[in-house]
């Protein structure tokens, strides 16, 4: 059924196409025929016009010639001037512009001589023997013999070098002209009209499309030989096969060829006209038949395609419909199957859902329970937090306060709601003892949040004051620590308390020590000075024994002073209130100074002291300064070196060295002596307060037992280490290391001395 439909479609559209083509072809030919006819008509009209025009011109010239002959008939003697005047009166330029000139030719003994001319330009032609030219001679002889107008053939070099022809009429002396004899006898001359052949050029109206030739044909054999051509427009070629008739063409418009005869005077002219295909038509007309043809073909094709398409679409629709109905059948079955399956699945899912619901309900119950537990725990935690005695402030990772406890509210005078959301630094401004605000970059909270360090400020540090809501301030001991979640800092906690009371106690203790030292020292000073005066014999002479006794008193008193000084230092160490003020210190110079002070004793005991200074293993004269408190270092050196000097017997050796190690970044100090050493059982007590080993007490009654304790405290407080090696009876070596960072600056209220 399909192929039948297709066949039908093709057949019908082809039929349509053919029909339309036939219509187009007929239209085409119809138009062509109409055009051809039109061309013919135009051609005929145009050629006729041309012929008439030429004929009129020739008649005109002949008429003029008769007029001039009349002049000669009327007057016997016409001279040159008279001729000219007459000619001028004719006003040839206006009336006959195509006439080149009128000439009068006289017959003189069978010679025809040009005597007069109307044209001023060709004066030189006067005297010219016209009969020397055969054509002219022939023409004038015919005129003479026939007593009629004669027209010549084409003369090449006639008027101003241009080709042309002449029209000649004879002039006789008498009127007896019956026979040729008579005529020949009585000829006087001729009047000739000189005409250029290019006058015919003006007749060309249609340019190349129309060409014509004027042939001088008197009935001879070949019409169209070259010498017979009087005038030819462009397009006229003289060839043997000159067309005499047109061929009828199939597609293009026909050419037009016509011949017409013109008789002028005694001569017969044949005018041969040739019109190009499409002569006389406008360009649109010329091709209109082609336009129609192409349009026609195009439309036929279009229409036939259209028809074909209609059928084709119809076919497609039919096909589609069949296919759809097939599919429809299939899907119907499939659908039923699916439906069954779906309903089964739904039933299953429903069961599942019911189970899940039960589980969820259980879960919710559990969660409710947990929630209750959690809120209980939270409440407890809250209670704990609230009741911490010290002030607690918690911030987030940016330092914004998120929580404060009750103690903080009470202490500062701010409510939670007023503080939470503010930055720690903003809510708790910190002032120094002069009342100046500590800048944000120095605040511990910022350092803690940035680095994760724990910072605990102690009682003994310089006073920092928090400001309350009412503007008053209080000193605080603060410990600031980061809140860590895994590796991340998520906030900070500051715990602080008001240490006004503690500070007062501290101050009181310091004052007590200060006062106590004063009270102890004053009587000692009294004793010292009076003994000095006695020894100076300010109260009179003294004897040897008195001097001895007085010296003992003096010594005892001096010992007391030492003890009091040492005790003072110890108390300051105990209180932790001594300050470390590091400055760049030349350690070697300091050690040298101390040794200098000991020189009297060294000399009297004849001891040898060697010093060594090294930097990274190389001996050098001095070391670069390191940050140390010179006062404290002096105490350290004094103690160690004095001990070495005291406990080394006469003629002994003392070596001390100062070494700088850039790798471990430490300063090493060593003092060794060849002295009495420290007994075994005393070694572990040597750094304790007031301890003196027995052998030391024997050697020197004057020690306080506090020196090494003070040295150890100073060294350890500075971040260093001290230890020793000793062999009783051989000697002792004390080792000391201090880090390069030097002593850490420590704020304290007192200096040791």
């Amino acid at each position, binding site marked *: 059924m399909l192929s039948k439909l297709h066949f039908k479609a093709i057949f019908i559209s082809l039929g349509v196409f053919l029909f339309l083509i036939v219509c187009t072809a007929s239209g085409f030919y119809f138009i062509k025929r109409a055009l051809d006819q039109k061309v013919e008509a135009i051609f005929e009209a145009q050629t006729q016009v041309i012929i008439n025009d030429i004929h009129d011109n020739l008649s005109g010239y002949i008429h003029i010639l008769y007029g001039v002959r009349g002049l000669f008939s009327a007057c016997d003697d016409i001279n040159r001037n008279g001729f000219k005047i007459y000619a001028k009166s004719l006003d040839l330029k206006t009336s006959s512009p195509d006439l080149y000139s009128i000439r009068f030719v006289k017959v003189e003994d069978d010679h025809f001589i040009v005597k007069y001319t109307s044209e001023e330009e060709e004066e030189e032609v006067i005297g010219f023997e016209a009969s020397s030219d055969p054509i002219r001679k022939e023409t004038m002889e015919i005129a003479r013999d026939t007593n009629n107008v004669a027209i010549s053939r084409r003369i090449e070099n006639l008027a101003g070098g241009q080709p042309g022809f002449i029209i000649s009429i004879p002039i006789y002396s008498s009127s007896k002209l019956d026979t040729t004899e008579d005529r020949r006898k009585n000829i006087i001359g001729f009047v000739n009209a000189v005409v250029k052949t290019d006058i015919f050029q003006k007749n060309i109206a249609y340019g190349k499309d129309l060409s014509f030739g004027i042939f001088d044909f008197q009935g001879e054999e070949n019409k169209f030989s070259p010498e017979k051509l009087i005038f030819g427009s462009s397009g006229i070629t003289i060839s043997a096969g000159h067309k005499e008739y047109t061929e009828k063409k199939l597609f293009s418009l026909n050419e037009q060829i016509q011949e017409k005869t013109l008789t002028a005077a005694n001569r017969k002219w044949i005018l041969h006209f040739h019109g190009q295909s499409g002569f006389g038509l406008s360009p649109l007309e010329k091709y209109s038949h082609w336009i129609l043809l192409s349009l026609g073909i195009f439309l036929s094709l279009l229409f036939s395609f259209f028809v074909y398409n209609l059928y084709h679409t119809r076919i497609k629709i039919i096909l589609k419909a069949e296919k759809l109905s097939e599919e429809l059948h299939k899907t119907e079955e499939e659908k039923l199957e699916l439906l069954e399956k779906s309903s089964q699945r739904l039933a299953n899912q429903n069961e599942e859902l019911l189970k899940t619901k039960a589980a969820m309900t259980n879960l919710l119950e559990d969660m409710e329970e947990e929630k209750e537990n959690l809120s209980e725990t939270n409440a407890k935690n809250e209670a704990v937090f609230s009741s911490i005695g010290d002030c607690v402030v918690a911030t987030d990772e940016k330092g914004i306060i998120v929580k404060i406890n009750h103690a903080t509210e009470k202490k500062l005078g701010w409510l939670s709601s007023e503080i939470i959301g503010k930055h720690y630094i903003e809510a708790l401004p910190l002032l120094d003892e002069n009342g100046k605000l500590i800048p944000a970059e120095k605040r511990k909270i910022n350092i803690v949040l940035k680095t994760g360090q724990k910072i605990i400020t102690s009682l003994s540090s310089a006073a920092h004051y928090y400001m309350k809501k009412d503007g008053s301030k209080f000193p605080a001991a603060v410990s600031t620590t980061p809140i860590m979640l895994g590796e991340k800092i998520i906030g900070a906690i500051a715990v602080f308390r008001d240490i006004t009371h503690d500070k007062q106690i501290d101050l009181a203790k310091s004052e007590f020590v200060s006062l106590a*030292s004063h009270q102890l020292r004053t009587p000692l*000073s009294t004793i010292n000075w*009076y003994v000095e005066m006695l020894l100076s014999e300010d109260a009179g002479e003294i004897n040897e024994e008195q001097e001895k006794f007085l010296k003992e008193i003096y010594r005892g008193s001096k010992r007391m*002073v030492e003890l*009091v000084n040492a005790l003072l230092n110890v108390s300051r160490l105990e209180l932790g209130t001594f300050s470390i003020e590091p400055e760049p210190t030349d350690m070697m110079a300091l050690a040298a100074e101390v040794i200098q002070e000991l020189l009297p004793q060294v000399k009297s005991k004849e001891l040898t002291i060697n010093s060594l200074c090294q930097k990274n293993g190389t001996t050098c004269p001095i070391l670069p300064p390191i940050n140390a408190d010179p006062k404290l270092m002096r105490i350290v050196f004094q103690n160690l070196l004095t001990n070495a000097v005291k406990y080394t017997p006469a003629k002994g050796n003392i070596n001390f060295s100062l070494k700088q190690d850039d790798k471990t970044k430490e300063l090493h100090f060593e003092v060794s002596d060849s002295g009495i050493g420290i007994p075994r059982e005393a070694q572990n007590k040597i750094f304790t307060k007031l301890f003196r080993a027995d052998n030391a007490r024997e050697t020197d009654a004057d020690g306080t037992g506090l020196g090494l304790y003070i040295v150890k405290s100073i060294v350890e407080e500075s971040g260093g280490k001290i230890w020793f090696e000793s062999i009783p009876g051989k000697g002792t070596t004390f080792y000391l290391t201090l880090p390069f960072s030097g002593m850490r600056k420590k704020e304290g209220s007192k200096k040791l001395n």
Partner: protein
Amino acid sequence: MEQKQRVVLVIEDEQPLVDAIKIKLGKEGFDSITARTVNQALQYLEEKVKIDVVWLDHYLLGKEDGLDFVVAIKKNDSPWKNVPIFVVSNTATPEKIQSYLALGIKRYYAKSDHRLEDIIKEIKEFKE
């Protein structure tokens, strides 16, 4: 300067020490007048007593201490403004020493560290 004896104002509350100081000063060619309180010392100032040197202890009888005395005589209109002051005391707190030096005292001595005659010798040789 003049060949007259120079006068030292000794401000010290401990009597035995005052006596010792006076004896030693005398031996070195000084005259001395003593005061045990700041007010007593300032009394001399009001009476326009001429003095050349001040020997000052820190702790004294009465409320005022040595610092108060220095402040009082260093006032612009005081006739004793340019008198050299030597502080001789047993209290050695660095803050106090700094304060004294800041106020313009010439030297500080810790009693127990120095022999009496050494102190006096230095005062005697002290030249502006």
